[in-house]
């Protein structure tokens, strides 16, 4: 069993990367790997609650599902605060269940403890 970290920088819908990350994370989790996802820059919008896309899969729900499966999904506090997702005890009221706003140092920790790192970005 290994540890995989995925870094995202795009918001939902604008690119395929949120959905691709979901597919990779889900496959890795099903094979009992540990999976971290770090939401950076625009990607802090991925877990916003209340998304209702008419033509795409709901990114918020996909990532809530990953969190339920045990994937650690954490967002950059600088990016999230700038964009109006205020960290209140590490939890944004705007977010779906299970996603935390933590610290950029957590990204460094994720990198340190990971066997593999995947960056998906435009």
């Amino acid at each position: 069993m290994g540890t995989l970290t995925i870094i995202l920088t795009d918001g939902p819908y604008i690119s395929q990367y949120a959905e691709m990350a979901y597919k990779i994370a889900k496959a890795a989790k099903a094979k009992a790997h540990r999976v971290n996802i770090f939401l950076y820059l625009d990607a802090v919008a991925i877990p916003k609650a209340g998304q209702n896309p008419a033509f795409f899969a709901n990114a918020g729900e996909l990532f809530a599902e990953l969190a339920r499966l045990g994937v650690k999904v954490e967002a950059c506090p600088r990016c999230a605060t700038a964009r109006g997702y205020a960290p209140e005890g590490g939890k944004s009221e705007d977010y779906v269940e299970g996603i935390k706003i933590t610290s950029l140092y957590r990204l460094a920790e994720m990198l340190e403890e990971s066997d593999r790192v995947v960056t998906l970005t435009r």
Partner: protein
Amino acid sequence: MRIFLLTKTPQNERTKLCLRLLASSEDALVYLAGDGVYNLLGRGEEPGGIRQAANQADKSLTVLVPRHRILASREDLEARGISADGKATVPADFYDRLVDDMMREGSRIYTF
């Protein structure tokens, strides 16, 4: 084993960098997802094109890597109207295989 997950079109600068890294990796395995599947279009030579490809030195993916070492995502091919046409393997379990290969002992994953 070096795994390259390529998600960008052949004209993207990151694709060009990816191909240069590929060229110096003997044991490369290439996974094509998203716009990366556009790299299966055409062949090394374009018969009767208006002009030659802008940079002759840039070899395309299918020239650099043998077909059995290229895997492409079926839904991404279908959406874009592209046939793998013997240039790549199109597994039913693309992401499962990607995860198995990249998490395998001793492999590395590069994403472009």
